[in-house]
């Protein structure tokens, strides 16, 4: 479904990702973990195309996409929830959702209703400007905005950040449910171990722009092993 080979990408000519290989199969939920600044977000950005690949390849489906610009990749069915939310501050909640759905033409009534059922606060605040929403509300909007277009691959960059604990659990549940129902593939960057455990089937550990380990579901369950890897 998605794989990178020897991916190097970074900012201003300096690579952050130093030859990174991952492979995600159709319908999988794969987590990426690592300490601050190792390049997790950079990986996500280069997968969606916001950071250009300097070397190496990114294959999505069976097509190489590293030369496509971000909007083309999005139109191929990749949804991206960035770290730091990046909602459109002066658009209303409703308009944010509408923009999320544009890739697939217009948002259908059922899709919208589904997303609003996931995150009732969005329905409540449908005409509020997104920039005035609380941090956690914005995060929910950022996730909802992507789900409304029914992507085949979702890139989630620290989706739990700033969200209240019970909704974190809800999000994990929703994602797993979605994955089961529609077979959507998910790549998840997270620091929240409970969320990883609740969602991920597999996990890459990153350090200094490389994958340094891969953990199976069993290893994920083992708290000690996780802790060791995160302390690299």
């Amino acid at each position, binding site marked *: 479904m998605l794989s990178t080979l020897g991916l190097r990408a970074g900012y201003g000519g300096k690579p952050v990702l130093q030859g990174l290989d991952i492979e995600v199969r159709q319908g999988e939920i794969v987590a990426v973990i690592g300490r601050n600044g190792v390049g997790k977000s950079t990986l996500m950005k280069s997968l*969606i*195309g*916001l950071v250009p690949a300097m070397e190496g390849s990114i294959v999505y489906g069976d097509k190489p996409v590293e030369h496509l*610009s*971000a*909007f083309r990749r*999005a*139109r191929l069915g990749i*949804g*991206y929830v*960035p770290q730091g939310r*990046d*909602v*459109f*501050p*002066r*658009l209303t909640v409703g*308009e*944010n959702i*509408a*923009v*999320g759905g*544009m*890739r*697939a033409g*217009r948002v259908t009534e059922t899709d919208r209703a589904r997303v609003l059922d996931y995150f009732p606060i969005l329905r409540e605040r449908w005409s509020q*400007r997104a*920039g*005035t929403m609380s941090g956690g509300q914005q995060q929910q909007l950022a996730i909802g*905005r*992507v789900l409304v*277009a029914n992507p085949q691959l979702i890139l989630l960059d620290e989706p739990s950040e700033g969200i209240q604990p019970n909704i974190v659990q809800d999000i994990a549940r929703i994602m797993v449910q979605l994955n089961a129902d529609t077979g959507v593939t998910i790549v998840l960057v997270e620091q929240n171990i409970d969320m990883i455990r609740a969602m991920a089937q597999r996990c890459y550990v990153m350090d200094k722009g490389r994958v340094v380990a891969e953990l199976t579901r069993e290893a994920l369950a083992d708290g000690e092993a996780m802790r060791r890897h995160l302390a690299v």
Partner: protein
Amino acid sequence: MDVGTLAFSALYQFGDAFAFLVLSACGLAVIFGMMGVINLAHGEFIMCGAYVTVSAAHAGVPLPLAIVLGALVAGLVGALVEILVIRHLYDRPLDTIVATWGLSLIGTQGTLILLGSTMAGVGTPFGSFTVGDYSYSLYRLVLCGMAVLVIAALYALFNWTRFGVMARATIQVPHMAAALGIDTRLVYSLTFALGAGLAGLAGGLYAPTMTLVPTMGTTFIMEAFVTVVVGGADVFLGTAPAAAVLAVVKATMTSWYGQLAGQIGLLMAVIIVIRVLPRGISGFLLRERA
């Protein structure tokens, strides 16, 4: 003189000032108000629209069509300018001051070199009508109507259509819009072209009533900037009320104390409005944090 005549003349003067402010400003409201590009070449897009309109009219194209043609050509030039220059400057809007200043020099002097220092006019259509003791130009009412129409059309475009929402999203957080599947380059080009086209429309509409010289754009530019800024960040909740407020001040001052007072009154009104509403009229209407 009876009250009806006086009332009509006051209304006419207000409408006339309002139309000039709105039509001067609407293209800039898109390019500067929405996109954040400080477009000092705005006047040259207006001039372009006027020149094309008049040239077409001289060539026998009916005036309404010639005006549309003026707007279209200005829009095309806008698209070209966007692709060649502006596109590279979105992340540093202040630098657009210098770039568009340069474009303005090129536009003005280039026109002078290519087309000479003046162009013959086409004359104002529709003739005049009389109310009480005064006779008025009918075309001025048309301008007024066009101003209202343009505002309504823009409001509809940006709030009710897909393109409008896309454009606003793109301008607010471009990388995220791209990541959601919007062709942001295209949206930018189209939006800029729209702004340039609106400027061209203003030029085309005013062309029959004005001297045609390469520097004619400068007579619009101060009014345009002032209206857009007093309006504030939101194009339509801002520009229209700003133009209305400023038109009242300008028309009143002009009729009482003359054109100088009108001009100074306009500028003072700007200073006072911004002092009272530091983020413009729409900033006040849409109070928000962030």
